[in-house]
């Protein structure tokens, strides 16, 4: 598999990361998402990382960049489903996830994005 599928859900894009990604795959995803945000005129991006056993500084940096790029393109990013052990490890590693919105699951993430749409329009 050399691409992670990006699904459209109304005004939002949903990415479910299901594999232990190698670095190139993560970089491809970043570029693919930027293009899709523009071509689909998406207002939000949901990234489901509930299958990810670890988030190291490379993936952490990628999530931050996706959030930044999307924001520049007028879309919010919500990272959903981070495992508790992953959150604990990220904090100890020292990865700043401050700019990133998080939610417990896809449903709550959708609600969050919908609310942010309401606030804007």
């Amino acid at each position, binding site marked *: 598999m050399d691409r992670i599928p990006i699904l459209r859900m109304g005004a939002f894009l949903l990415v479910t990361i299901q594999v*232990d990604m*190698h*670095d*190139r795959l993560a970089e491809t995803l970043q570029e693919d998402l930027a293009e899709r945000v523009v071509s689909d005129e998406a207002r939000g991006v949901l990234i489901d990382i509930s299958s990810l*056993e*670890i*988030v*190291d*500084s*490379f993936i*952490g*940096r990628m999530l931050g960049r996706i959030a930044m790029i999307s924001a520049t393109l007028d879309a919010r990013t919500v990272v959903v489903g981070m*495992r*508790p*052990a*992953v959150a*604990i*490890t990220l904090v*100890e*590693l*020292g*990865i700043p996830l401050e700019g990133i919105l998080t939610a417990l699951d896809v449903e709550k993430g959708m609600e969050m994005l919908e609310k942010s749409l309401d606030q804007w329009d």
Partner: protein
Amino acid sequence: MSVEQYEILPITAEEDLVRVRRATRVLCIKLGFNLVEQTKMITAASELARNTLVFGGGGEVQIQVLLEPGCAGLRLIFEDNGPGIPNIELAMKDGYTTGNGLGLGLSGSKRLVNEFDISSQIGKGTRVSITRWKSNIT
């Protein structure tokens, strides 16, 4: 202390990082590490394996299982014959990077393990050893 040389994995391509993470996970489970302990060790392994590949120009990791009365440990020794690190103290600082990373691989993985040893010689290479212990007395 008894040291069991478990395996040696090459780190010469991105796919090898996935293999190192997977092998670390299997051993963490075998040694009875809980989920948080596993996650920390695999994350540290991922950081150091990437450094070996990106900065060291490739190398290998030795995976060892350590047995002591009452506890067991997992030790990973990453080695490369790359350019070496001129100033280890600086390289160990949060946020220091000569690449385009976050500069948290070395400093962060030190926080994720029980023992962390780094040695490096300019022009010769770098060696980083990490160990996490699991007490059997619970």
